[in-house]
């Protein structure tokens, strides 16, 4: 897991926490594991749990699609097109891997920081 801190999330209450790209992948995969979603919906769902900016999601989705962890299909909605994202088998596996890595990381931090 690369804790390469490139993304920035801004919270309303001050403390800006940087989230590793991989964790964000995990968040998206975790949501898509439950349901297929379209871009806007996905963004708002993620934002219910963590504070990310509105333009954060597109690069994540693009990357997941390039890596074959997610694919897309189109459905028409009220006369226009809607692109849905759905998780692939490879994505499900990757999600399990990220879950484990996150647990290990979380436990490590808890030990050091104290609960």
């Amino acid at each position, binding site marked *: 897991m690369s804790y*390469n*801190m*490139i993304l*920035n999330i*801004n919270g309303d209450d001050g403390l800006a926490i940087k989230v590793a790209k991989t964790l964000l992948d995990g968040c998206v995969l975790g949501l898509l594991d439950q349901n297929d979603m*379209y*871009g*806007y*919906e996905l*963004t708002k769902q993620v934002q219910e749990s963590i504070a990310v*900016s*509105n*333009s954060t999601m*597109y*690069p994540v*989705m*693009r*990357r997941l699609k*390039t*890596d074959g962890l997610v694919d897309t299909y189109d459905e028409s909605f009220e006369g*226009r*097109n*809607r*692109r849905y994202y759905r998780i692939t088998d490879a994505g499900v596996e990757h999600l399990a891997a990220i879950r484990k890595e996150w647990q290990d990381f979380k436990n490590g931090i808890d030990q050091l920081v104290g609960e």
Partner: protein
Amino acid sequence: MQTYLEELKVYLNKLPQADIEDALSYYQEYLEDAGINTYPACIKELGTPVQLARRIRADIDVNDYKNGGISNEQSTWQYFSKIFIAMASVPVLLPLAGVLGAVVALLFAILVVTLLFTSCIIVLFIISFLELMYWAITNLGLYFNLSIVAFGASLMLLGASMDLAYGLQKLTVNFTKWIRQFSTWMYGKTINKMNGGNK
């Protein structure tokens, strides 16, 4: 909204057509789903078209090269100069671009010096190897024991020169990797700085 997207398209124009269309259709749908129609509202939601485009391009550049794009020296210089120009084109980031340029130039200078020096040593070793070998063979009759020594020494020199050459090759390969990694890291820092203002 259309104005916003048109502007975004302009700032994305250096990307491959497929990437441009993909990004545009994503954000068109996003804005439609969000019910956002006016230009100021678009900016409030997503940042200015310039900022959004930079975010998209930065991610594409970083990812496509990380995923093992062309990894030869020419592309590394292209990559580095892309990042350098992108950074230098923003007045606020000029110092950072300067740092990036200075570090890369310094690393390159060190590499060139090392290459030249080591190459000289390798040539010296090979010449010595040849001379010793020649001497050993021609003196087998006269100075048998010494000839064996010379023979062994010449082989050692040959081996050493081969090791040095291999080390040089690895150094050059890793050097381009380091340049790329450092450039990426610096660019990440500049994205952070820009996003600091993008709420």
